[in-house]
């Protein structure tokens, strides 16, 4: 038989069959290592057994059974005597103390306590085989339960004699007079392998180490087919009920949006810093699509080769920096400015266009106006075409393509310029519209050459002129003819007795077989109106008739003209040729004879045009 922790453990638990148990006992006689190991196993089992036992009160037990549905709410708790727990190897353990009769709310001491009588060393129930850790001298029972929760490293470094053995809790509280340890350590002789120093301190050898041994083929099968590898090797963890690796939770919608925004911002920042390895092709930060494609380093074979500008003669007005560049073997004798995006080269004190970063597509022609194109390119490093110093070298046969700066900073500036031009154009259009609106606005009343009548000025509807057509827009009112001088009237007829306080309510027209009649309906507008108002009917020319009322307020409209009549249009003159009167002007299609007269009840002025 070989040394096996699994066999010893099963032997300790009396789980081996009789024959196998006899073999183990025979092996233990001659194997000190196994005796020591068995002793350690027994000590550990004692420590586990010595853990505090808890007794639950009947009241709590009844509540638990009732809440779990085992007992009905009105059912009494069955009282059962607690059975002592006795491990099979603990056959010499004394019987537990009889439990007191539980009463309601009474808490029984939580530990099953052995009797206080300490057995003699020879009567103890352990075999004391192997090397056993010498116990410290008898430690008086602590008044409080051992609690090493707060102990630190200094406790771990304390000598073993100061460490009380673990028997805990309520036992020490309830019955401190009872032994908490397995008795006898002082009576034992030092086990073999224990060294005692000159200072009297006892050193304990290390715990026996267990190593696998080759299996014995002729060994009878144990009660259970056990192998040492199952124990000495790390036993397989029994995590059959664990859920396994839990996948990370998917971030929520807000988290995903935040991540996308952060990535976009990071890419945009890197792209703006000139990081060419990262290119945003869509979304925020992506370059704007133009009519030409982007060609980075290698131009397409179908494209015309780019001819760099001819370098200036060395030393001809070249600044010291450029001299240094030439001296160090710079190919074109050029030195790039700090801003490569501008693609600007300083050479011999001149602004020379740099290499074309972007080539136009074959067949592409810049359709932008030359002025706009030059103005845009002038600000971003491209020379204006009108400058002869910046013109490309015409000695070469292939015309170098005009560099179209497409990098993002220049593009941004390009866009800003376009936006500024658009804004300026809008502003100019706004100013022009404002000025033209002022020129077409109606003339203020103060600019009128003739002062308006007080009654007319008080009437708001008297200000605009009214055409013969009812749907004529009021904006045409300012285009009403100006007031002709009173001396221009011919064939005048004066009617009325000089009455005042009347209002022209309506203007009606009538087509008769022999003539065309125009009727002015007058009504008194003031309580003291009397007589007939003075009216003057005259002609400015054969086709223009003017009717001027004195002391009459004009009406709101000029009425609806019939379709066939000699009157082409009727309008209220803003300024009457006769001061202090309200004048109507009739445009005639043909020269007519005018006959004017008043009619009473109601008061009307009738014009017969024949």
């Amino acid at each position, binding site marked *: 038989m070989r040394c096996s922790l699994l066999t*010893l453990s099963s032997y300790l638990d009396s789980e081996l069959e009789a024959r196998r148990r006899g073999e183990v006992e025979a092996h233990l006689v001659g194997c000190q290592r196994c005796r020591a190991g068995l002793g350690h196993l027994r000590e550990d*089992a004692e*420590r586990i*057994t010595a*853990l505090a036992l808890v007794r639950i009160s009947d009241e709590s037990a009844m509540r638990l059974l009732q809440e779990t549905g*085992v007992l009905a709410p009105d059912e009494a708790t*069955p009282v059962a005597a607690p059975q002592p727990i006795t491990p099979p190897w603990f056959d010499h353990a004394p019987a537990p103390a009889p439990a007191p009769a539980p009463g309601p709310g009474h808490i029984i*001491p*939580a530990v099953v306590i052995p009797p206080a009588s300490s057995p003699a060393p020879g009567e103890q129930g352990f075999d004391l085989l192997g090397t056993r850790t010498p116990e410290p001298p008898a430690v008086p029972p602590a008044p409080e339960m051992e609690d090493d929760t707060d102990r630190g490293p200094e406790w771990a470094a304390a000598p073993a004699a100061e460490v009380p053995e673990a028997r*805990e809790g309520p036992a020490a509280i309830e019955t401190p007079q009872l032994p908490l340890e397995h008795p006898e350590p002082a009576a034992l002789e030092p086990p073999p392998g224990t060294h005692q120093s000159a200072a009297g301190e006892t050193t304990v050898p290390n715990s026996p180490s267990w190593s696998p041994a080759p299996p014995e083929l002729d060994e009878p099968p144990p009660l259970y087919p056990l192998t040492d590898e199952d124990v000495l090797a790390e036993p397989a963890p029994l995590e059959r009920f664990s859920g396994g690796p839990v996948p990370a939770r998917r971030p929520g919608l807000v988290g995903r949006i935040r991540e996308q925004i952060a990535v976009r911002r990071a890419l945009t920042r890197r792209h703006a810093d000139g990081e060419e390895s990262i290119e945003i092709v869509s979304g925020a930060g992506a370059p704007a699509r133009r009519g030409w494609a982007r060609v980075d380093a290698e131009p397409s074979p179908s494209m015309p080769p780019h001819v760099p500008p001819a370098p200036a003669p060395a030393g001809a007005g070249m600044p010291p920096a450029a001299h240094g560049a030439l001296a160090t073997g710079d190919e074109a004798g050029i030195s790039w400015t700090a801003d490569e995006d501008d693609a600007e080269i300083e050479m011999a004190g001149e602004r020379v266009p740099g290499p074309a970063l972007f080539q136009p597509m074959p067949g592409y022609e810049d359709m932008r106006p030359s002025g706009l194109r030059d103005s845009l390119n002038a600000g971003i490093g491209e020379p204006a075409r009108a400058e002869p110093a910046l013109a490309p070298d015409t000695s070469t046969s292939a015309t170098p393509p005009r560099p179209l700066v497409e990098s993002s900073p220049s593009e941004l500036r390009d866009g800003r310029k376009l936006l500024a031009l658009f804004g300026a154009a809008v502003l100019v259009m706004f100013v022009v519209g404002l000025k033209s609106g002022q020129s077409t606005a109606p003339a203020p009343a103060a600019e009128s050459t003739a002062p308006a009548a007080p009654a007319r000025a008080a009437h708001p509807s008297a200000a605009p002129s009214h055409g013969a057509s009812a749907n004529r827009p009021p904006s045409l009112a300012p285009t009403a003819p100006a007031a002709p001088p009173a001396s221009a009237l011919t064939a005048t007829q004066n009617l009325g007795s000089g009455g005042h306080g009347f209002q022209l309510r309506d203007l009606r027209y009538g087509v008769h077989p022999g003539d065309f009649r125009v009727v002015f309906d007058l009504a008194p507008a003031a309580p003291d109106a009397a007589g007939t108002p003075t009216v003057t009917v005259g002609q400015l020319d054969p086709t223009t008739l003017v009717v001027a009322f004195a002391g009459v307020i004009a009406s709101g409209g000029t009425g609806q003209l019939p379709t066939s009549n000699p009157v082409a249009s009727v309008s209220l003159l803003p300024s009457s040729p006769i001061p202090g009167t309200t004048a109507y002007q009739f445009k005639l299609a043909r020269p007519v004879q005018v006959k004017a007269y008043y009619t009473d009840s109601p008061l009307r002025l009738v014009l017969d045009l024949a």
Partner: protein
Amino acid sequence: MLCTHTVMLNVAPHASSSYASELSGLVREHLDELLTYAIHLTGDADEAMEFVAAGVYHARRYPPARLQSDGRVALYRAVTRAARNGQHFPPRPHGPARLFRRPRPSFVADEAARQAARVNTVKRALMTVPFERRAAILLRDLAALSYREIGTALECSPEATARLLAGARREFGTVYREIAL
């Protein structure tokens, strides 16, 4: 025409009063052991109480086939499963409901149970042992179950129980000797 219908009624065993009385007696008989085992298995008296209650509730809902012979082991198995899976009784709320104060069960751990749950060197070393090994060593040395019964409680074979116990004892002894000196 005469129609005969056979109605199958699923009458749960726990519905009978005799089973309830047997189960209540069995639970009351082993309640102290179950609570002791759960306290040292979990290290918390209140949680142990709820795990024991969950085990008893499970035994009431799903009674063992042979209550008299396997009832004790079935109770240990139910309590071990409750502690392993974190099944409390009364059930703890999940989701946003856990932010609110949950009702405390009327049964609470006694002061003796709280004292028993206090940590000492042995318990500290015991807590370093994995759950299955810790349960095995407690079921053996504290509850004095046999290998076969431990296998039933832990839902494994007696051979696996022997390996579990041997490994648990080796691990516990190593840790205890390291932290006790």
